[in-house]
């Protein structure tokens, strides 16, 4: 195998481990106190004005009606259209939306490339003269690829411009923020140029992926395509090990905290978790806390 293939495999492996690590970190975090924030979209008939089941007389005696459709709708609007940014920061949305939508298309493009590389290994042809599936995959790959790359580059450049020119914003920018956006722009532009000029339907990229996943020697037709592959591999890894993979945390922030209105009931799993946590030992040092005792002991009486 050539060094580029080893690098690509390493990047993909690191990114998978990074995502798993992030998910586990949040999943394993202990049961926390209730801290939802309204409006909560699954509050049936109340989400529109930000109401909750706590508005009901004797709420604990009534079935809690959950509007999962509205929650899914809210999620879809937030994920696909970046509704929150549109509503509260329109200037940023103008760049952030194409940037994120471009990345979604790139994820689809990578899935198509990966899937079609496997199909090719199974002797199913991909291309204009292939069967129906092969043709659909061929055109979808080109559309998602170029649209994704162009939108990502456009959005990243817009965000770069905003970060660099907005005086109030500049204070909070770090070199890493500029690096991230330059990386996304650079990667997109290099891949567009490399393939549009010599390999417009990403055939060599598909071939590269197929050869890499079967651990056989790949041939890269030009240095520019090689640089594009290297940048793409690095970007996949970089996104997952930095704050750019905030989609993981965002999922937990919304579902585990912001929209989590599950009440604790006697004998429930929540209660069992809490009882266990009360045996954790506290080491806070302030005078009013009995350092070294368990939470259950500390909260019974105030230290004099």
């Amino acid at each position, binding site marked *: 195998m050539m060094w580029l293939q080893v690098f690509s495999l390493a990047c993909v492996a690191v990114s998978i481990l990074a995502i798993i690590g992030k998910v586990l970190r949040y999943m394993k975090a*202990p049961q926390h106190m209730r801290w939802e924030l309204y409006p909560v979209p699954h509050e049936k008939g109340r989400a529109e004005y930000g109401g909750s089941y706590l508005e009901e007389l004797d709420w604990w005696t009534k079935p809690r009606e959950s509007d999962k459709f509205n929650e899914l709708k809210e999620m879809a609007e937030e994920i696909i259209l970046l509704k929150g940014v549109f509503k509260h920061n329109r200037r940023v949305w103008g760049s952030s939306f194409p940037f994120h939508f471009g990345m979604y298309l790139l994820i689809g493009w990578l899935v198509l490339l990966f899937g079609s590389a496997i199909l090719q290994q199974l002797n199913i042809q991909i291309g204009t003269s292939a069967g129906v599936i092969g043709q659909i995959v061929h055109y979808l790959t080109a559309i998602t690829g170029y649209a994704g790359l162009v939108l990502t580059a456009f959005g990243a450049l817009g965000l770069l411009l905003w970060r660099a020119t907005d005086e109030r914003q500049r204070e909070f920018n770090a070199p890493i923020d500029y690096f991230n956006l330059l990386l996304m722009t650079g990667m997109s532009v290099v891949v567009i140029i490399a393939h549009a000029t010599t390999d417009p339907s990403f055939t060599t990229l598909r071939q590269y992926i197929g050869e890499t996943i079967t651990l056989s020697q790949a041939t890269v037709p030009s240095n520019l395509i090689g640089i594009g592959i290297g940048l793409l591999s690095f970007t996949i890894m970089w996104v997952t090990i930095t704050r750019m993979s905030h989609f993981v945390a965002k999922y937990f922030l919304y579902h585990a905290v912001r929209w989590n209105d599950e009440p604790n009931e006697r004998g429930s799993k929540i209660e069992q978790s809490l009882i266990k946590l009360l045996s954790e030992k*506290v080491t806070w040092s302030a005078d009013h806390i009995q350092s070294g005792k368990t939470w259950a002991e500390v909260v019974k009486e*105030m230290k004099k």
Partner: protein
Amino acid sequence: MSSDKLRVKDIGRKADPLVNIDMTNLPKLPYPYEDWVDPDIEELPDKKRNGRNVSLDGVMNIIIDNPKTDQEKEEMVAKFLVGLRKLLSKENNWTFLKPLMLSLDNCVKCNTCQEACPIFESSGNLSAYRPLFRSDLLRRIINKYVKPGGKLTAKFTGSDIDLNWNTVARLAQLSYRCTLCRRCAQTCPMGVDNGLLAREIRKLFSQELGISPQELHADGTVKQLETGSSTGMNPEALMDLMEFAEEDIKDRTGLDIKIQMDKPGADILLIHNAGEFLSWPENLEAFAILFELAGISWTLSSDMVGYDSVNYGLFYDDTQYARVTLKHAEVAKKLGVKKVVVGECGHAHKAIMAIGDRIWLGESNIPRESCMATMEDLILNEKVMIDPSRNEFPVTTHDPCNFTRSMGIIEPQRRILRKICPQFREMTPHGAHNYCCGGGSGFAIMQSHNFPNWKMAISGRKKFAQILNAFSKEELAPEVNKYVCAPCSNCKGQIRDIITYFDANERCGFLYGGLVELIVNCMTDVKEGFIDWDDFH
């Protein structure tokens, strides 16, 4: 230094104060306050500071004693870092570790939050009051001084910050320039909660360094746990006050109403803010009248802590919070009531019903309900007779953040108001998207040093503008009686102080009060005039 050019990395600098509040930069108020000029915030000379640190903005609402020597300063910084590590540990902070980690990790620093913050806006856009300024400072310290290899990557990751005594003291002060209203969190596209982060900073200072505002700790939770109430009222004094309240009801209404105390097995235990027994006894009296005339089985408790729904631990300290809420749970369990109804107190709602949901465990998990729902049942289902024409005056209502934005209790009070107040109108915005009264997170009870001036002119400014905007020019005439309904003790205190600061009782004829007073004011079984327009207090 020009305050609007202040950068996070300036936080450790020697300037004192670091931020200069220019009162002429504060946003203009609407009619009839277009020409209002706020007095400067009183400077605190060395004598008044008494060796305390107010180096952020010259405003004092938290007591931070300056260490006397450089060595002591270094020790305090080291202790702060130890506390920071504890804040990020499961054993010491499982209570909020997950939301904390998520809010620390997830910010993309887009500053969307600043547009939602009434304090930032009302300060004339002072950089230090941006929600992101405070949380970014915390993140930088964690990234550089707590995370492995942080110092090596600090410049690249934007975590370049000097950690010295000034940085630590100002971080503490910054955590008390936020009312924890969480309006910023609503607008964050990522879901980051800067209000939560401010509260976590407060916890670190209280639980590790023993630094907290006197009104919240020594005169708040400590006094409550020792005497029974943060007002210092012990059970004997409570019983005297209840006698007074019964007599006052008789004087006001001619009714013989018994305030039920310690009634085992009652349907309802009303947990009420004891501060109201002293400042606004008519609120408790109105509950007693309403419940008695509706034939409800109810009671108050005279047990230690059980008669005061206050729980200032909610604002600064998990251990103190839990100690108080467990006392409330014990009282409910001991009386064997069917449910607890939380009176008109926003933070008590959150402490007892929302956060308490994870503390009232096992047999102590007695059902809890908002008084908004209880009162709605009585009014909408006509369990008491009302005559809305008795409330024929302009009324608007304030939404306490703790039970609207944080608990979603929004419509019951509105359905009541629409039924009993023909001239009810909303503020803009309202409901879950309301603005804080400016007294949230304990600010309402902080009355010392020069803080009241700050909280009136800055943190309360947006609410006052909202109140003014709820009425027409004609209605704002002083001879037109109008009512600002504030169904929360702390909000009510803040609105009283706002009205006083802006002289708005004299200039505009504002009266403020709770919701239950409006209900009793229009009950046909009660003689007219429960609300006394001449008694602004």
